[in-house]
C-alpha cells in the first residue's frame, strides 16, 4: 500500500495526521521527561539510603575516649568510602574536632547551610543538602545531628553529584531512542489509522465522481453510520434535481403544445380570401419563429449537463439514423455508421438526441448519395463526425451557419435553430460542434462530447 502524506489544512487526512503527530510527539516528550524524573528520584533515594546507612554505621561505631575525644569502635570505611577523593565521604564533628573517612585523606568538608528541620532534628534522621567538597567538587550531602554520650555530634555523609546524575543520564540515553522508536511506530500507526478511518469517505468521494461521470445514478448505501445521512441526503438531492428537470421538461412540452396548437389553427384558418395580402400569415410566421426561438433556448437551459449519464452512443445514433432513413426513404442514400459498440458518452440520452438529431438531419437533407457517421475517442472526448456529400457550405459562411435562426438555404425546410441549440448543449457538457468543408464536396460536422470512460472536463455553469 502506498502511503502519501497529504498536505495539512487542505485535507481532512492532513489535519488528522498533523494533529495526531503533534499530539503524539508532545505526549512522548512529556512521557520521556516524567520517566527521566522518576529514574532521577529513584537514584537519589538509593544514594540517600546508602548515605543514611553509612551515617548509621558511623553513629553505631562512635564512642568517646576517657579524655572526651571522639573515637570509632570499628572501621566503617567499606567501599567506596575507602577510595581517596571519590566524593564518597563521611565526617563526624563534635566540639570542633573531626573524624572522617579514609577517602577524605585527612581533609575536612564544611557542613553546607540548610533549612532547620525540627522534625528530623528531633528524630535524629539525616537531612539532605548540597554543597562543595574539600576540593570544591559538587557533593550531595546527608547530615544528621545526634547525641552520643551526651554530646552533640554532627555526622555527615556525601556522595559525588555525578553518582546522582550519571544513572539518570544513562537512563535518558536509553529513553530517547526508545521514545523515538515508539514515535515512529505511532506515526506509521497514525497514517494507517487515518487511511483506514477515511476509507469510507474516499470511497464516497469516488462514488460522487462516478455520479458526475454517469457511471452511477445514485450512491450505494454504506455500513458506516456517520455517512448514512449524508448519502441519503445526496441521493435525495440528485433525485430531486432529476425530477425537477423532468417536470421542467414537461412544462416546456406543455407550453410548446399550448402555444403552437392555436398558432397552427390560426395558420390553417388564414387563406387568400381572409388574408389577401398575406400580412396576417407573415405575422403568424413571426410569432411561430419567436416561439421556436425561445422554446429552443429554454430546451438548451434544461440540459442534463452535470447529471449522471452514460449514454451508449451507437444506440442513440442508430435510433436517429432509423428515423432519418424512414423520413428520407425516397432519397435512397447510403448510410455508413462506424461507431464502436463500447463507446459511451457522458451526456444524457435526451441531450445526445438534441445535439445529434439536427446535425444528422442536415446531413440526410443535403447528402447527394451518402452519409457517413463515425465515432472516435480523442483524449477525454468522444468525437462524432457526420459527413455528407451534398453541396457543403463555403468556409467563409460556416461561422454564420452556427448563428441562431440563420438558414443558409431557404428552399429546404427548417427553422435555423437546430445547429445553434446543438452547439449550445454540447458546450454545456464541455464539448463543441464544428463545421468544416469536406475535401471533395459536402460538409463534415464534428461533435465533441465527453467520453464516459475518460476524465470528463469540468462542466461549465
Amino acid at each position, binding site marked *: 500500500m502506498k502511503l502519501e502524506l497529504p498536505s495539512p489544512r487542505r485535507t481532512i487526512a492532513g489535519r488528522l495526521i498533523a494533529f495526531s503527530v503533534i499530539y503524539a510527539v508532545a505526549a512522548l516528550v512529556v512521557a520521556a521527561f516524567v520517566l527521566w524524573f522518576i529514574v532521577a528520584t529513584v537514584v537519589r533515594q538509593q544514594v540517600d539510603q546508602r548515605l543514611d546507612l553509612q551515617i548509621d554505621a558511623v553513629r553505631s561505631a562512635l564512642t568517646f575516649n576517657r579524655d572526651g575525644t571522639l573515637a570509632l569502635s570499628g572501621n566503617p570505611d567499606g567501599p567506596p568510602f575507602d577510595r581517596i577523593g571519590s566524593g564518597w565521604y563521611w565526617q563526624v564533628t563534635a566540639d570542633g574536632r573531626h573524624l572522617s573517612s579514609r577517602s577524605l585523606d585527612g581533609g575536612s568538608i564544611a557542613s553546607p547551610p540548610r533549612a532547620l528541620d525540627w522534625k528530623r532534628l528531633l528524630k535524629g534522621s539525616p537531612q539532605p543538602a548540597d554543597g562543595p567538597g574539600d576540593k570544591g567538587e559538587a557533593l550531595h550531602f546527608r547530615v544528621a545531628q545526634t547525641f552520643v554520650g551526651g554530646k552533640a555530634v554532627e555526622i555527615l555523609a556525601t556522595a559525588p553529584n555525578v553518582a546522582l546524575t550519571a544513572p539518570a543520564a544513562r537512563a535518558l540515553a536509553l529513553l530517547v531512542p526508545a521514545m523515538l522508536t515508539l514515535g515512529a511506530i505511532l506515526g506509521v500507526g497514525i497514517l494507517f489509522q487515518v487511511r483506514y478511518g477515511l476509507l469510507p469517505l474516499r470511497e464516497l468521494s469516488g462514488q460522487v465522481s462516478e455520479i458526475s461521470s454517469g457511471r452511477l445514478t445514485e450512491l450505494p448505501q454504506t455500513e458506516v453510520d456517520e455517512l448514512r445521512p449524508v448519502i441519503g441526503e445526496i441521493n435525495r438531492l440528485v433525485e430531486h434535481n432529476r425530477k425537477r428537470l423532468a417536470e421542467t421538461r414537461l412544462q416546456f412540452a406543455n407550453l410548446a*403544445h399550448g402555444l*403552437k396548437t392555436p398558432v397552427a389553427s390560426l*395558420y*390553417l384558418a388564414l387563406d387568400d380570401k381572409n388574408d389577401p395580402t398575406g400580412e396576417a400569415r407573415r405575422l403568424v410566421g413571426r410569432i411561430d419563429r419567436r416561439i421556436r426561438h425561445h422554446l429552443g433556448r429554454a430546451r438548451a437551459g434544461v440540459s442534463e449537463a452535470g447529471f449522471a449519464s452514460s449514454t451508449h452512443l451507437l444506440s442513440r445514433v442508430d435510433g436517429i439514423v432509423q428515423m432519418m432513413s424512414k423520413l428520407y426513404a425516397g432519397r435512397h442514400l447510403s448510410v455508413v455508421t462506424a461507431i464502436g459498440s463500447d463507446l459511451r458518452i457522458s451526456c444524457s440520452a435526451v441531450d445526445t438526441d438534441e445535439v445529434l438529431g439536427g446535425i444528422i438531419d442536415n446531413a440526410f437533407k443535403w447528402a447527394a448519395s451518402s452519409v457517413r457517421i463515425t465515432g472516435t475517442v480523442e483524449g477525454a472526448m468522444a468525437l462524432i463526425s457526420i459527413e455528407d456529400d451534398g453541396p457543403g457550405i463555403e468556409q467563409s459562411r460556416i461561422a454564420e451557419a452556427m448563428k441562431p435562426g440563420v438558414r443558409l438555404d431557404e428552399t429546404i425546410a427548417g427553422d435555423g435553430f437546430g445547429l445553434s441549440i446543438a452547439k449550445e448543449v454540447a458546450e454545456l457538457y464541455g464539448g463543441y460542434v464544428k463545421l468544416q468543408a469536406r475535401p471533395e464536396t459536402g460538409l463534415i460536422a464534428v461533435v465533441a462530447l465527453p467520453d464516459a470512460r475518460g476524465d470528463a472536463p469540468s462542466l461549465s455553469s
Partner: protein
Amino acid sequence: MRVLLVEDDADLSKRIAASLRAESFVVDIARNGEDAEHAGLTEIFDVAVLDLGLPKIDGVTVLKSWRSGERMLPVLVLTARDGWPDKVAAFKAGADDFLTKPFKIEELILRLRALVRRAAGHAASVITCGDLSFDAQLGTFELAGLPLRLTAFEWRVLSCLILRKNVIVDRRELIERVYEGDTDVDSNSIEVIIARLRRKIGAERIGTERGRGYMLRAGQ
C-alpha cells in the same frame, strides 16, 4: 382513404378535418389518447395523424399500444415540440413521419398520401392498372391519359382498390375505409358506388368475388 385524426384541440382538428375531407379523405377524429388508442386498435384506417400532447394518454404511449397490438397503419406524428428527443422517441415508438406545428395543410395532405402509398407497397407516386393511373401524390386519376372525374365516394373506393390492385379487398373493409365511423351505412350503398365506377372505367375492371369483396384488375 380513411384517416384517424388524433388532436385534442377542437378548433385545429375541425380545420384539419375539413381540409382533409375536401381532398376526399374519410376523417375520424379522436380528441384524447384513450379514444385514439381504442379506435386505432379496433377499426381500420389507412393512416393516422397523431398529436403527441394528448389528454389521458400521451401520443407516444398510444403509438406504442397500436404497434404492440400489431396495428401497422402508417402514422404521421403532429407535434408542437421541436426538440429532437421527442421526435426520436416518437419514431422509436413506431412513427413514420412527423410535422411540427404550425404546418401548411398542403404539406400534411402530401405526406399522408405518400405514407398511404408507401404502406401499400408502391415506391413510385403514380400507380397504374392497365390504362388507369392514379397519382398518389396529387390524388388524381387518369383513364387512357384523360382526367377522370369522380365523386368523393367514388374516389375513396377507387383509390382503395388501386392501392391494392389485383388483390381482393374485403367488402366490410372497403366500407370502413369509405365511410366515417359515425355514419349510418346502407349495406347496398357500396354496390351503388361500384356500379357507378364500373360505368366510368369499364365493368370488366372491377371484379366481384362473391361473399368476399372486390378486386381491381388491369382489364382487357
